């Protein structure tokens, strides 16, 4: 009888340990892109790429009902792939897109916009990549969807059709 109890207790212990290990195994062990979702955009003030007298102030973003913040650079090849999607979002859907020019040379960034078009209403120069870290980004391109200054969606890598559809859905 005693042995029976021992076997039951041993069995339960093994099951509990198994469940605990399974839980840890299934938990997210990679970079969590949703860490900033639901949070307010961090505060920053950056110089504008195209107009030296204008500043990109994060408080301006807080006042906007719906906006997109896109981290990009002229040296970033995937940024060229996503650029037509940004142009479409601006032209066809009238979405306010704000750019964050990441660790770039201003001349190259301006040439990039001349060649591929400018979808941005403002472009902050993040020369050292510090604002990108504040945003929880780790590279380019990355896109944040903001609603009254709050991050509601984040896309890592170049925008694609699925991401654009998701953005349009969020805008409704």
């Amino acid at each position: 009888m005693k042995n029976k109890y021992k076997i039951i207790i041993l069995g339960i212990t093994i099951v509990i340990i198994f469940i605990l290990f399974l839980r840890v195994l299934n938990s997210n062990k990679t970079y969590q892109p949703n860490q900033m979702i639901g949070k307010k955009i961090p505060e920053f003030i950056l110089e504008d790429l195209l107009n030296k007298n204008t500043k990109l102030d994060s408080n301006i973003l807080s006042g906007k009902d719906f906006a997109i913040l896109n981290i990009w650079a002229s040296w970033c090849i995937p940024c060229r792939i996503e650029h037509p999607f940004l142009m479409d979002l601006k032209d066809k859907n009238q979405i306010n897109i704000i750019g964050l020019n990441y660790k770039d040379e201003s001349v190259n960034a301006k040439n990039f916009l001349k060649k591929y078009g400018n979808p941005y209403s403002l472009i902050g120069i993040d020369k050292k990549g510090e604002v990108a870290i504040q945003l929880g980004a780790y590279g380019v391109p990355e896109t944040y969807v903001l609603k009254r200054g709050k991050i509601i969606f984040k896309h890592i890598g170049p925008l694609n059709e699925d991401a654009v559809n998701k953005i349009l859905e969020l805008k409704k």
Partner: protein
Amino acid sequence: MKKFIFIIIFFILSSNVFSANEELKNKIYKNIRCIVCQGQSIYESNSDFAIDLKKLISKKLDNGENEKQIYEFLISRYGEWIVFNPGLNLNSLALWLLPLLIFMIGGFLIFRLNNKEKK
């Protein structure tokens, strides 16, 4: 002569402060995961991401922030995954308590077997 001694003392003291600061920096770098690398800390990595983080951490330390504040900042941006040494929370509870539990069960079993043999 007094001036000379003063300069030597100044250099010794400042080098001590400098090395303590460097030690703390390296300690933090070693505990921060380079998210874009494979299993490396930012201390070991020369990727753009690691270099940027090292610069930012160094700047924050110079601005008077402490180790805990820096970890809190990075966790708030990148999640618990960014630190190699995670704190005690619901997800890491098993990690912290299981070895202790297994050790206690093992100790209890040895104790009981030992008692039985004596009898």
